[in-house]
Structures are given as structure tokens and as C-alpha cells.
């Protein structure tokens, strides 16, 4: 991700994400220091007032936006939804294509058990009703990377319906509080991914890569319960965390494992919903928020100026930050849905309906899958709050940053320091340092053990807080920091510590 996620004020200043040391309650009051965006991708939109015209006039009523999402998550599975082909990102083009994937005549789909289990698991985690019987349909359209001329999906009777997703958005004067919100989930359906088209304008030809064709997708359809880009971004981020916790999708947006289409309309509250547009293929959470907010504002402006909203598909130009009509050549598509005749109904069982003596390899037991559900992010957060006395918003940050929770837990395991101190150090000093260096947690030169040792030293008052922070400064590339640190340590130990030993420890810590 290219843009800065968190504000960093000046070199050498402390990162003041949220103050956690001390016992004061931060739920009501604003923390000192700069902004805190728990869901980092939404920083650009969180603070701007939305959905009023540029110059609100007297007596004018406000606009409300209605946003619904369709999210495609690639199922984490060794093989494709209906064929034995391997699933692998960035393999040589057309190297992972079975006869079925290439739609050779006479080939038939064979449903991948793993994909069904992933769908059931995801449905359960999202509080869905799991349909014991679901059906597959063909959705027809001609496109070069859809070799069969149709996609197998679940239009009539999907595998899971009527769920909900609870996510948190930031609120309060300084966006420091997390307000829980819920979006309803209409359905989760299993479907095939398409291949990829690469347009070579120079030679005016299109190259087709079918490696992705037939990969299993979970299409998660959210009800239009969202009202802005920030909410959409937070909901998608939460879904991403859930999928990752379940292991049902790697949900890496940069690799296209999670793709979002947004349906957007605006209306005056109390009046019928407006005409909606669909913004397609949003492939980062930040762009998702930006695109939605841009589109909402565009629709408001259009209507304010006496214009009209067309029911159309739009794409988001992420460099220029606006949406534009995709101008479907064929006009309104009629997908000519039809039952997939080559797949019998997908029947699932639970403990009560499981036929006696059924071969476990031949049946899927919903109850059995429920028992294997891992801890979900909301429960993890609650546990963090309970166990370490941290604020809810801190638990959000710990989960949102990839690898940060694990780092935190490893530090906790190895240090004597108070959990609250660890939280503060991990979220403020350590994370701030990473942000400044534009590093991921996995790229951090500071290991959890090193930080734990540092915190132990701090805890035993062997070094001061200032000295400890100098250790972090050392990482910023200041070679003089080590001498300064040695001085600080000597001072702190009233010159009783051996400078050579101090240096050795410091170097070990900073290596």
C-alpha cells in the first residue's frame, strides 16, 4: 500500500497513536496526540463531512447514501471448484488448465469438497442459515476469458443465506472510539472464477490466461445497509479478517483474492431509493472507500444540478480518483440463467439428518464443521480486552495490522512487563516506527524477543523509558544513538554498569 496510513508528525517525535499507559479511561475522552484510524485504509474519508452539497442552502435537506456490496473471495483450496487443476497465483500463463477449465466439449463439472466446506464454514462464521439443499445454475455471457460461455454459480438456491457481519467504525471527535455496526448478509454462493484477458493494444489482440478460470469463489452479497465508504471499508476489512481466521480465503486484495463490487444510490431520507450504479472491481480497501465516496458525491452533484443517474456499471480510476461509465456494449445483459444439469443438488447434513452408516467421505456434516470453527476476530478482540485490559480500539489495531497480533502475543509471552505497557509499546513505539520506515510487521528488524528484553530492562528500571525509546531510534538509522544510549544507561545505573556490556546488549537489541 503506497499512501501513508497513519499520520507521523515530524522526525524524532513520538508516535502518539493512543495513549494506553496509565489508568485513565479513553473511551469517552480523546487521546492526546494525532488521529487514530483503526481501519487504516479509511483515513482519507473518516474526517470529512459527507453528503451535503458544497454550499448548503437554507431549507435544503440532506442526502442519504445507500451502499450494498458484492464481495468475491477466492477460496483457499489446492484445486479448482469443479476440476482437479491446481490453484496457484502467478504461475506461467495457461499452465493450470484442465480439459474442463478449457471447456473442451464433453467435459463435466465435479464439485470440490473443500470448496463446499469452506462455504459452509464461512456461512457459519457469518451467522448464516446453511441451506441443506442448494443448487447450481448457469449464467450465460460471451467473453473471451469465459470459455464455456457461461459461469456456474448459485443463483436460485445458494448454500448460505440470511447472515450478518458486525464490524467497527471509528467515531468520536478524534475518531478514537469504535462503534459496532452490523450489515446483513443476503447470501453466500459458490461460483467459478473467470480467466484473465490481457489486451495488447499495440498488436490489437487479446491474450487469454485460463489459470484462474474455474477457481472457486465465495460470492458474499451484503444487503444495502451501508451508508458511506468508511463503513464499506470497515465491513470488508472485518470480512477479510474473518476469512483469514477461518482459512477459507487468503483474501489478499492485491492478488485479487478479494474483489468488491459496490452498488450505490442516493436519496432524500424518507423518499424512495434512488437509481443505483454499480462500481466494479475495487481491489483495495482504500480505493473501495474512495470510490464509494466519490460516487456518492458525484450522484449528489449530478442530481443537485438537475441531472439524472443512470443504472449503469462504472469503474474506478484509482490514480485519478474518479469513477467512469464502463459503457457496456451489449446494453442490459440478460444472463439467461438455467439450472446446471450436470450437477445434482448439493445436499448437506447435520447431526439429526445424517443418514445412518453414511460414508464420512461422501457426506458433509454442518455440525462437524461448526465444531472446527476457529476463534473469530471479534472474540479475539474481546479476549484481548479482557485478558490485557486494553481498549477495544487497540484490539482492532492489533488485528488489522497483518502479523501484529502474533508479534504482540510473542512479546507478552517473553516479557515480565505489564500487558498495558506492552500494548503501548507495540502500538505506539513499535508500530509507529514501522510506519515511518514503511515496513510490514514481518519485515521488522526488531524481533519480539528483542522488544521483550527491552521491556524487561525497562521494567526492572535498568533503563529509562527515554533510553528504551532511543533503542528504537537507533533503528531509524542514527549511529550516534548508541553512544547516547550508553550514556543514558550509565547515567541510569549511576555509572555502575560496564559500558562494554551495555554496548553489547544494545547492539544485540538493535541487530
Amino acid at each position: 500500500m503506497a499512501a501513508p496510513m497513519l499520520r507521523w508528525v515530524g522526525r524524532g517525535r513520538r508516535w502518539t497513536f493512543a495513549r494506553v499507559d496509565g489508568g485513565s479511561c479513553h473511551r469517552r475522552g480523546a487521546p492526546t496526540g494525532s488521529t487514530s484510524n483503526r481501519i487504516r485504509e479509511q483515513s482519507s474519508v473518516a474526517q470529512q463531512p459527507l453528503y451535503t452539497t458544497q454550499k448548503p442552502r437554507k431549507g435544503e435537506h440532506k442526502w442519504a447514501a445507500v451502499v450494498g456490496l458484492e464481495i468475491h473471495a477466492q477460496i483457499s483450496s489446492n484445486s479448482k471448484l469443479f476440476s482437479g487443476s491446481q490453484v496457484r497465483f502467478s504461475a506461467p500463463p495457461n499452465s493450470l488448465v484442465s480439459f474442463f477449465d478449457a471447456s473442451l466439449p464433453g467435459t463435466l463439472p465435479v464439485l470440490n469438497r473443500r470448496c463446499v466446506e469452506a462455504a459452509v464454514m464461512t456461512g457459519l462464521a457469518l451467522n448464516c442459515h446453511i441451506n441443506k439443499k442448494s443448487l447450481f445454475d448457469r449464467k450465460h455471457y460471451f467473453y473471451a476469458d469465459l470459455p464455456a460461455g457461461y459461469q456456474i454459480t448459485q443463483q436460485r438456491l445458494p448454500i448460505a443465506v440470511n447472515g450478518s457481519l458486525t464490524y467497527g467504525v471509528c467515531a468520536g471527535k478524534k475518531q478514537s472510539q469504535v462503534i459496532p455496526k452490523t450489515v446483513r448478509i443476503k447470501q453466500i454462493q459458490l461460483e467459478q472464477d473467470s480467466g484473465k484477458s490481457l489486451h495488447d493494444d499495440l498488436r490489437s489482440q487479446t491474450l487469454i490466461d485460463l489459470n484462474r478460470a474455474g477457481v472457486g469463489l465465495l460470492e458474499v452479497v451484503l444487503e444495502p445497509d451501508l451508508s458511506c465508504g468508511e463503513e464499506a471499508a470497515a465491513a470488508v476489512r472485518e470480512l477479510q479478517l474473518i476469512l483469514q481466521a477461518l482459512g477459507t480465503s487468503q483474501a489478499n486484495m492485491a492478488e485479487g483474492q478479494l474483489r468488491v463490487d459496490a452498488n450505490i444510490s442516493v436519496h432524500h431520507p424518507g423518499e424512495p431509493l434512488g437509481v443505483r450504479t454499480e462500481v466494479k472491481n475495487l481491489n483495495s480497501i482504500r480505493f473501495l472507500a474512495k470510490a464509494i465516496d466519490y460516487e456518492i458525491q458525484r450522484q449528489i452533484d449530478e442530481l443537485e444540478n438537475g441531472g439524472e443517474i443512470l443504472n449503469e456499471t462504472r469503474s474506478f480510476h484509482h490514480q485519478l480518483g474518479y469513477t467512469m461509465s464502463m459503457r457496456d456494449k451489449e446494453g442490459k445483459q440478460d444472463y439467461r440463467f438455467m439450472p446446471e444439469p450436470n450437477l445434482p443438488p448439493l445436499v448437506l447434513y447435520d447431526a439429526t439428518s445424517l443418514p445412518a452408516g453414511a460414508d464420512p467421505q461422501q457426506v458433509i456434516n454442518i455440525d462437524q464443521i461448526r465444531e472446527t470453527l476457529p476463534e473469530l476476530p471479534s472474540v479475539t478482540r474481546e479476549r484481548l480486552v479482557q485478558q490485557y485490559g486494553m481498549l477495544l480500539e487497540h484490539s482492532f489495531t492489533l488485528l488489522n495490522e497483518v502479523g501484529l497480533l502474533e508479534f504482540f502475543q510473542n512479546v507478552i509471552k517473553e516479557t515480565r512487563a505489564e500487558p498495558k505497557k506492552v500494548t503501548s509499546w507495540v502500538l505506539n513505539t513499535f508500530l509507529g516506527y514501522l510506519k515511518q520506515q514503511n515496513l510490514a510487521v514481518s519485515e521488522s528488524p526488531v524481533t519480539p524477543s528483542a522488544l521483550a528484553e527491552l521491556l524487561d530492562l525497562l521494567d526492572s528500571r535498568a533503563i529509562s523509558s527515554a533510553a528504551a525509546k532511543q533503542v528504537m531510534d537507533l533503528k531509524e538509522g542514527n549511529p550516534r544513538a548508541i553512544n547516547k544510549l550508553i550514556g543514558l544507561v550509565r547515567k541510569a545505573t549511576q555509572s555502575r554498569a560496564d559500558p562494554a556490556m551495555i554496548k553489547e546488549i544494545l547492539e544485540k537489541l538493535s541487530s
Partner: protein
Amino acid sequence: MRTMLGRTLREVSAALKQGQITPTELCQKCLSLIKKTKFLNAYITVSEEVALKQAEESEKRYKNGQSLGDLDGIPVAVKDNFSTSGIETTCASNMLKGYIPPYNATVVQKLLDQGALLMGKTNLDEFAMGSGSTDGVFGPVKNPWSYSKQYREKRKQNPHSKNEDSDWLITGGSSGGSAAAVSAFTCYAALGSDTGGSTRNPAAHCGLVGFKPSYGLVSRHGLIPLVNSMDVPGILTRCVDDAAIVLGALAGPDPKDSTTVHDPINKPFMLPSLADVSKLCIGIPKEYLVPELSSEVQSLWSKAADLFESEGAKVLEVSLPHTSYSIVCYHVLCTSEVASNMARFDGLQYGHRCDIDVSTEAMYAATRREGFNDVVRGRILSGNFFLLKENYENYFVKAQKVRRLIANDFVNAFNSGVDVLLTPTTLSEAVPYLEFIKEDNRTRSAQDDIFTQAVNMAGLPAVSIPVALSNQGLPIGLQFIGRAFCDQQLLTVAKWFEKQVQFPVIQLQELMDDCSAVLENEKLASVSLKQ
């Protein structure tokens, strides 16, 4: 003794086991006859090299006493809508001319695994859409009975008969090439496909046993689909026992076809010889007595019923009240699936591609216009119309409901105690080509499928058995329909009936004699094969 070529599969299998003939000799005889009967247009591709190589391997197995079973060394033919690895598979369409599949259909693989020799790929109506085997890009198939002694003698007696050469008969279809291939003794069994009667109809016209197994008993993997929910690989043989042998080799679940059933089926399909039929109940569906039915077929049908009754079976009139809706229902369901199944033929990955490259859409359109004939294009157009959002409920969904009613008719009939239904297979015997093409494909298909098509809607097993020759000296078949997955019971009844009627063997003396003469001299035979 009849010549080797005139024998049934079971007989020639015994001859192979006893060493009376080797697989290579048998293969060469068949290849020679294929060449001699080329004018029938039964084969699109003759896989001579493949067959000879398979024969050589079979011969080794026989020498080592490691025969793979009844089908080892037996020449068979396969309709050209089954995928054959390394052998062109065209569906008799420009769209797939030159298409060489990289894999074998499961049924083809099973035949090869049993040691059968693949003689070639047989002609059909384009994408199996038709009932005459007249509408393929390789031209119509001629019925071997056109050249039979039985038919020719009758024609001599008829003062109105015209020029013989232009008066040849159609085989029926769409598996007409397979029927002609077996009927002309070029192989001992052939695979057809059966979506609305495409195996049973040409079997009836060519004096063969044409068997359509229960839907789900035999894998469709590799069969290029017409209507997935009705297609079944069909079997064409000279007698019921032969059909049972082939069924035994083909039946069973296939992990590559999710619609095959896993319940264990009795294998192999050894058919007991029924001593008596007194415990049987034969149903005669009254709705099948239609005005268009020829008096000869009608008379044979009632004679067959009488035969069962005289041998102690119970013969009941039953009602299949929704039969008359079958044709229109089939039209909607068939064309809808066709529209969907044909969507993949876009010229991008395999098959025909036009020269137009101004845009992908233009390329699709021109490719499909050039690749498909009018019949296929017409069905695609109708099917897409029925699947449009605004029409789906009124056509497709209604047709599905009617399909259920038709299937329930059969269930009710069987629940009333009937074991097997007895019906005509076709309205009349085979007609001359020139007469057949007076009507368009759609009209013909609608007429010719009326006794066979409802069975596909219900997924039931059915078999056409040749009964007798008409006044013109042409074969007439009757159809038996069984309960779902009671294929063995159905064939057992059919076998008893076959034994009673003693249908005459086709007399292709001129062809056979010439061929035998050629084959008597081994050197001559090998010379002719190299041509």
C-alpha cells in the same frame, strides 16, 4: 455356418477364444468391408491404424491366454460425438472439423480397456440434432437395407418403383452411422447416443437392437452433449445378449460424471433365458395408438401383445396421460440446453474459427454462422428465447413441470403393477431419402421421436427390438420400456421376445460374397488395405 462377419458379438467372441479366427484377421475383414460399404457413408473417420494396432495387442493377449474378456478383439464403432483421444471428433459439424480431443470419453475408454478394436467414428446428424442422419456436414447415411435381398425382391414386384440408385432409404437417426455400421457387418457393436430416441430410432429402421440405458447408469463424460439432462450413451447390436455384454462393460459410476449413480448394479449383465413369462405384466400405453401409426406397425404391436398374453403374461392397457405434451415440452427443454451447451463453440480455443478479426464479437458471430448448420442455429435461437428473463417462467419452468408430469405418468404405470411397457419404436419403416427430406428437420424430429422421447424425460431404460419385415421387406421394431435401473429385467424380457419373433438376418449377399472372395486371399487383402 454363417461367415464370421455375420455372427453376433457373442458368437465371434467364442470363435476368437477358440482360435478359429485371430483378432487381426477379424479386424482386416471388417476394414475391408468398411471400404466396400463406403457408399453407405456410415463412417466419418475410419481409424484403421489404431484398430490394427489394437488387434495386434489383442492377438498377443489371446496367444498368452490373457484375454480381457468377451470384448477382447471385437471390432466396434463409436458415434462421432464421443471424444476419442487422438482421433478427430467432429459431431458432423463444420464447427468441429479437425478437432482432435486429448482424452477418451469414459465409455470409449471402457471399451478399449476391455480390448475392443475401435474401427472408426460414425456419421450422425450435426450435433445429434435430427432423426434421419441426413443433416450432417458429411452427408446422409444410407440404410444397408436399401441394398438387401429382402427389400430388392419386394421392389421388383412393385411396378411403381423408380430408379433404384436414387431411391435409397434413410437409416433414421441421429445415430444412423452407428446403426448402418453394425447392420452392414462392419463391426459387432456400436455406440450411439440417445437424447430423444437417437439410438432406438435407427435401430428400428436398420433391424438392430437399440438400447438406451437408465439415465445415470452409464457415464456421459466425453459425450459431446445435446441435452445433458436427457443424453445417454446408447448401444447398437445385432442381438439382446450382445447389448448386455456391452452394457456390462460400460455401466457403473464414473467420478468424472456426477450424475452417474453409486448404488451397486448387478454386474456383469448376464441375461437369464426366461422359461416362461407368466409372472410378467406388460403394459400397453393407450396414448401411443396415434392416427399416424402405420397399420403394419400397429398390427405387429398388437400381435406382440397377443404373444405375451398367449404365453401367460398379463397384458394391461395403461394410460400415460401427458404423452401428447411431450413433443412441445421436449422442444423447450432441448433447445434451451442446446443454446447453453453450444455457447462454448466460439472459435477461440478449438474447432472452426472464421477469418474476421475486426472484433471479438464479430469473430464469434461469423464463426458460429459458418460453423453451425441451420438446424443447430435454429435451436440455439429458440433456446435463448426461452431462457430470456421475461420468458423463463412461461416456457422453461412450465416445460420442467410438464416433464415432471410425464415422468410421473411412468411411475404411476409401474406402480400399478406393470413390469415393462410395450410400444412401437417408430411410426413406420424407413422411408426413402427423397421422401424424408420433403419435411424439414424440425417437423421430422417431432414426428419421429413421439414414441421414444418421453422415456428420456423420465430417464428410464428402453430398448428397440427388431420384430419383422414390413410388406416392403424392411425392418420394424417395437420398444420395451422398463423401470429406472431395472435395465437387466428389461433386457431379459426383450431377450425372450427376440427369441420368439426370430427376426430375419439382413441378406447383403452381394456385399458379403464379394468381400469374402477378397478376403480369401490374404495377400490380396493386405494389398487392398494399403490403398
